Every structure is written in structure tokens, then in C-alpha cells.
């Protein structure tokens, strides 16, 4: 990847973070930490890796994206809007009565959202179904699905993990936002999920581990995943919950709290100075 391209993605990521914070502030509720931890992953997918067309939302050959950790909806909405799926003004109607942007992704209301999520643990199964249908229809698109590290405590995730390996679903790539935190504390304290990589390997997956805030590593891994045939791939992305705003980083409290006016101002300033 050219240095200039990386710089372009970094600039987009910064704008996305700002949009996320403003949207959450205006909504007065929502998930700050888990939206900020996935920004680079979403930007890499939507602004570089994925084939998609905001002007032809349902075109057959598009790559599909499923936000299994649906509470990161603000990040997805900010990215979709910047891609051109809908006007940026709509972002600031997030979570309001009558808004196209529901608290959790809803395909009935928002162009660019493939399936509704929000109840954790269900996205990988749906992504498997989408990938199987693509294979049946001989459509060469890929399916990307983003999971949380707390989310993988749901049993359904592991049922789906078996399915993907059993049916050799290699047109699917899962990405795990391994930010170490869930609502009640550190994942390792609430309900340990380690050894994570070994678990997915044992379930028949190709496992790649990367820094989830490094565009070179994300894009490399996405390219690598595309070349792996006969089994699904998961990218375990090591991330920081609340990434980009020092006083939100690694703070369990900011899982489900929106920035107030003072926090917003400080956060925007900090983002601008970096």
C-alpha cells in the first residue's frame, strides 16, 4: 500500500471519529468505546478493500458486511454516510424518534446495512448464510463480519464457527475486535475467552493476528485472507476500546455512555491536535 493511500485512510479515520463523537453527543446515549475501537477496521474495509456502490446499494457483486457487534452502529453509520449512502445530516438524528439511524443497525431503515443486529452473537450465522447463498449463485463476492470479544462468549458464535469450517466457507472473513473490555469489566475477569487464537484454529479456521489500528496490517491481513482457500479466516484485531480519545481509552465506563458537551469539546480538540 502506498504511503499516500495510508495517509488518506488515516485522515478519513480521524473525521469518522469526530462524526461518531458528535452523533453520540447529540443522541445523548449510545456506545462510545466499542465504536471508536473499530474505526480503522471499518475504514479499511469500506474505503479500500470492499467492492460496493452507494449509488447501487443492492448490486449483486458487492462485498457484504455484517456488524455482528451491532452496538458499534455509530461507527458504521458514520462510514456509510461518508461513502455516500445517505446525507451526513442524518447522522445527527441518530437514535431519535423517526430517524433512519436506529440505535442498532436496522436494514429496514438504513441503506448499506445488510441485516439487523444488536442482539449479540447472531451475526456470524447470518454471514455464513449470506456466504453460502453467494456460493450457490456463483457470485464472487466476499462477506466480512465484525465480532466483539465479549460477544464471542455467546454459544451461537461457536456453532457458527463450526458451520463455516464444515462448509469450507472461504468467501467469508471474520474480524474480531479484541479490545479486552465488555460491560462488566475486562473480558478476562468477567468470562475468560483465551486462548482465543487456538480456539478458532481448533474449530478449523485460519487465524491472523494484527494491530487493529494499523492500516498496513489490516489491509495485509484482508488480502491474505482472500487467498486462503478451503476454510474460513478470522483476523484477531488487537484494539483499544475508546481509541483516539485519551480519557475514553480502556475505560470500562465509556462502553455505553455518550460524551457530554465538555467531553465532546475536549475530545475533538485532542483529535485535531494529533
Amino acid at each position: 500500500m502506498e504511503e499516500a493511500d495510508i495517509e488518506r485512510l488515516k485522515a478519513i479515520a480521524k473525521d469518522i471519529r469526530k462524526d461518531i463523537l458528535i452523533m453520540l453527543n447529540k443522541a445523548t446515549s449510545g456506545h462510545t468505546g466499542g465504536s471508536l475501537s473499530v474505526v480503522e477496521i471499518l475504514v479499511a474495509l469500506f474505503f479500500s478493500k470492499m467492492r460496493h456502490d452507494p449509488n447501487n446499494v443492492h448490486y449483486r457483486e458487492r462485498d457484504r458486511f455484517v456488524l455482528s457487534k451491532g452496538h458499534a452502529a455509530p461507527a458504521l453509520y458514520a462510514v456509510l454516510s461518508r461513502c455516500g449512502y445517505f446525507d451526513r445530516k442524518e447522522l445527527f438524528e441518530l437514535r431519535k424518534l423517526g430517524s433512519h439511524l436506529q440505535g442498532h443497525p436496522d436494514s429496514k431503515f438504513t441503506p448499506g446495512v445488510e441485516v439487523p443486529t444488536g442482539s449479540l452473537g447472531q451475526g456470524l450465522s447470518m454471514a455464513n448464510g449470506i456466504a453460502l447463498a453467494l456460493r450457490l449463485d456463483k457470485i464472487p463476492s466476499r462477506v466480512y463480519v465484525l465480532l466483539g470479544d465479549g460477544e464471542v462468549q455467546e454459544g451461537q458464535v461457536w456453532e457458527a464457527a463450526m458451520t463455516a469450517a464444515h462448509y469450507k466457507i472461504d468467501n467469508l472473513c471474520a474480524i474480531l475486535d479484541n479490545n479486552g473490555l465488555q460491560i462488566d469489566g475486562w473480558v478476562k475477569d468477567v468470562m475468560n475467552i483465551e486462548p482465543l487464537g487456538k480456539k478458532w484454529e481448533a474449530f478449523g479456521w485460519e487465524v491472523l493476528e494484527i494491530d487493529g489500528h494499523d492500516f498496513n496490517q489490516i489491509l495485509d491481513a484482508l488480502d491474505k485472507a482472500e487467498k486462503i482457500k478451503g476454510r474460513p479466516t478470522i483476523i484477531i484485531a488487537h484494539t483499544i476500546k475508546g481509541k483516539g480519545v485519551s480519557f475514553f481509552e480502556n475505560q470500562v465506563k465509556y462502553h455505553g455512555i455518550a460524551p457530554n458537551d465538555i467531553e465532546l469539546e475536549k475530545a475533538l480538540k485532542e483529535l485535531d491536535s494529533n
Partner: protein
Amino acid sequence: MEKASLREAYGRALLELGRRNENIVVLDADLSGSTKTKMFAKEFPNRFFNMGVAEQDMIGTAAGLAASGKIPFASTFAIFATGRAWEQIRQSVAYAGLNVKIVASHGGITVGDDGGSHQAIEDIALMRILPHMAVIVPADAIEMEQVIYTIAEYEGPVYVRGSRVNFPIIYNNGDYHFQLGKGSIIREGEDITIIATGLMVHHTLEAAKELENCGISARVINMSTIKPIDKELIIESAKITGAIVTAEEHLIIGGLGSAVCEVLSESYPVPVKRIGIEDRFGISGKPEALLAYFHLMPEDIIEAAKRLLDCKPYRLRAIA
């Protein structure tokens, strides 16, 4: 008007129960701060099990604890408790006849901004259809506290539906005594009966005051136990008032309204109007705005009551 948190009432009662009885154990699924089971967890870390984001496993583990003589309270949001883990509740808890208490927060649309995915509008129905399962929806924090003490003594599976939002206090004079299986009359009236549950009890009281100004006297019942339902009180009310409105923050299909109709249609049919959410899912918005949007406000109850009275042909009324 004074309001109080049902979640905090639950947390307090649970803590007190934990002090009184070593067999009380508590489970949560990564929402202990929100459901307030954290209060118990802090004092009794050995008797608290955070299961992570794994509601099905939580219910199964609770069943095992109950099978071994413990009294488990399992908590999470209403939709994940009753929806995600429904078949575990059916098989491992209800079918087994085990003494598991499922106490959920975030019932109904007043979940608010999180949107339809998180708003439990079908939980009462899901639990009510299970054989042996008792279903309770407290009307305020005072009743919630009493419910928790009561079900700890009761042997058998119970579902209690709490809320994210604070409810106005209904029982502030200290002489209320919750009884499992009994509705409570909180206002007498002759023209019509309004049977409500949860937050709608407050809205119904507001409606009844306004109806009185229009010359309509409404009997108001808090039907906090939805199962086993208080048949005698429903039939008695039908006989006295001849028309019944039901009000719930739940689908009109399968909840309180359905339960009341089941009793009336077999025993003493009278005109009924069910107030609740029509056949649709919730959406994002602030709780107050959503209550208005889904027609769950006192005005909606008033309107329904007035219309229903027109179905009582034998009675001449003057509506202001």
C-alpha cells in the same frame, strides 16, 4: 410526582435476601451494573456468577443450582432473558419444575434509544405460555421489593419484568401487601374497569381521574401477577362494571389483555378494549415520546374507555 427505580429496588432486596439466606445465589450476563445485581455481587462474590454474554448458559446454570437446593436469581435485559434463552427456560427450568427466579430489567418500549432490537414487547407472552411459570410485572419500586421477598419464599419458577426507567410511586402509604396471584383494586368505580400492569398502572390512575371529571367512574386494578391470573377479581369487575379496558406496555397479543380476555370469554363475556402495542416492533426514541407514539398515554386510555362505554347499550350516560 415521585419516581423510583425498580432496578435499585431489586438490587436492595436481593442484597437483603443474601444476608438472610445463604442459599440465595445470583447470576447475570454482563449487565450486572444495569440490572443492579452488582450490589449483591460486591457483598457476596462467592455466590455471584457473571456468565458473560451468554444468557442460555446462565439459565442452564441457574437450573443446575436450583436442582441442588440453591435459590438462583438470574438477571439480564428482558429480551435476552426471555427471548434468547426461551427454550432453556422451557426445558431446564419450567419443564423440570425448578425453583429459578428470572428477574429482568428493560421490559417494554421505555428501553428507548437502543431501539427495537432491545425493546422486549413480547416477554410476558413468552413466559406466560410456559406451564408452571409465574409471571409478575410490578407497578412501582415498592411493589418490586415486595415481589422479590415473596418469590424467594415461593417454590417454583418465576419471571419478573422490570424496567429501565423509573416508575412513579403508586403505593406510598405503606399499607400495600403484594400477594402472588392477586390483583389489587387501587381505585373503586362502577362504570368501567381498567386493568393495568407495570408503568401503565400509573397512566391508568391518571386516566381515571380525568374520566371522573367527565362523569365516568372507573375501577382501576393493578394486575401485577399476570400468571396465575386473578380470575375472581376479573369476573367480579366484569359483573360490577360491564366493560373492561386492559393496559400494558407490551404487545396486545399474548400479554395481560389476552389473559383477561381468556378469562372473560369463557366465564363472563363483556366488551373489552386492549391497550398495548399493535402487531409491530419498537423503534428508537426517548421513552416518553415512544409511549405517546405507541398510544400508551392516559389520553389513549381515556379515549378507549369512552368508546367502550358506547358498547354498553343498556346504560345511559352523560359524557362531558
